[in-house]
């Protein structure tokens, strides 16, 4: 009720936007060297007036929601060599009114993240690389892309249970039957590096992204 401490002007246009970017660079695993940012729907018209353009760049540079340098994020991006392009699309009615798509690049690695700013700084990462994701990035998140084999869900949750962490949400989406499935798991607490390494070593697991609390 008193707080959060944040950069103005509005929690959905600044704090939420910064958090979407902070989640996205953790999906990429690095601060990008180039990025295409698409603002949709209501955001398409208002992002500049509300400073969401500076907020998204600030977040991509890993600035926190209360960092006063957000106002100068364009200058910092220039110093650090982050290249960016903005686009606005007004009529993507299948998306939430305040949606941002980020196409991030770091060297040869590319990811696409779609995030929604829900108000009060709360976000939903709706999709990662075309897979449905729907996580809030409020706690600890694991994204695992794996072969769509039977028993995968039970196996992964059993491994996580060993860590004595509570699974808050778990969802699986896949592009086709026996193709690649994307598991998104939100946990109440973090897991050890060895567990991540173990999961990563399994041949049927193609990619593992671990996102600890994004505000820390």
């Amino acid at each position, binding site marked *: 009720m008193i707080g959060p401490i*944040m950069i103005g002007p509005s929690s959905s246009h600044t704090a939420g936007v910064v958090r979407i970017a902070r989640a996205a660079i953790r999906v990429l695993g690095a601060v990008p060297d180039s990025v295409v940012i698409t603002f949709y729907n209501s955001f398409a018209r208002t992002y500049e007036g509300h400073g969401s353009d500076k907020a998204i760049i600030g977040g991509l540079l890993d600035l926190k929601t209360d960092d006063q340098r957000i106002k100068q994020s364009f200058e910092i991006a220039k110093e650090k060599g982050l290249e960016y392009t903005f686009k606005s699309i007004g009529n993507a009615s299948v998306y939430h009114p305040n949606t941002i798509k980020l196409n991030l690049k770091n060297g040869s690695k590319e990811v696409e993240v779609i995030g929604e700013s829900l*108000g009060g700084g709360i976000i939903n990462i709706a999709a990662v690389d075309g897979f449905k994701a729907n996580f809030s990035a409020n706690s600890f998140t694991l994204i695992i892309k794996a072969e769509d084999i039977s028993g995968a869900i039970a196996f992964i949750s059993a491994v996580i249970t060993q860590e004595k962490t509570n699974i808050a949400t778990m969802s699986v989406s896949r592009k086709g039957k026996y193709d690649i499935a994307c598991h998104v798991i939100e946990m109440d607490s973090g897991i050890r590096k060895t567990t991540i390494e173990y999961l990563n070593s399994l041949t049927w697991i193609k990619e593992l992204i671990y996102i600890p609390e994004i505000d820390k």
Partner: protein
Amino acid sequence: MSFLFESFKGWKAYCESNHLNLYESVLQYEVSQKGVTEEEIWLGLAKAFEVMKEAVDSGLSEDMTSKSGMINNGAKKVYNFPVAVLSKEFQKLISRALAAKEVNSCMGRVVAAPTAGASGILPGALYTLQEIHSLNDREILEGLLIGAGIALIIEQKASLAGAVGGCQAETGSAAAMASGAIVHCLGGSVDQVFNAVAITIQCMLGLVCDPVAGLVEIPCVVRNASAVAIANSSAQIALAGVNAVIPVDECIEAMGEIGSSMESRYKETAMGGLAATLTGQEISKRVLIQDIEILSDEDLPE
């Protein structure tokens, strides 16, 4: 103990039966909700008050021009104007609320209290209160806790968001929080604190949310100033023991009722009120992005 913040009546009864001051019950609640120690809560509040004062000071010293140009160093002009309409203190009060809110509009750092749109009200009120009455920080932080308790109940019974309940929910709630905090800090009783909230809500009822071009600038900045004035007038009335007649819980219910019957064009959509005026629309055309891509059906995301 979350039931505690369902009504003012319940809050008072809980405090009486547990022999707690109002602020102590909020402290307990925060500890139980956030799973942190009392010490950490006090530290968090101290940090919040620090940022509030910092926002006031930077709003009065640094350049505050918003991207749209609608905000242009108004707080400094008010602060430095040679004629004081009422008193020097009143002039400072108003300019401090403006200052902190201008910082918010210009991408500076603020404390959402309870929201970013209303982030000038508590800073303006508490900064000035502390100065005039030489209060120590601890007393101000108690006031912030009382404000948090007030906001918790308003959120339960009505809303704190302009998009849900109109501006009464946003600046009105912040004014109610400030008013209650002021009365507490000046030694008022529980009933007087509640009366201050009731009177403030009575004054703020019905206010719509109609920001020009959808930006949190006009009328938001000046409403932070008027809300801080109402917070102080209500505190003055309540401290003297004047009764609000309609009990505080019922005032909040009235606010909820008005909020839910308010048309959506008055709820942050920038379709009604000041946003829909001729000038409001002209500004909107100028500041909003016009070259938006409209995708053809086959290119739309599924």
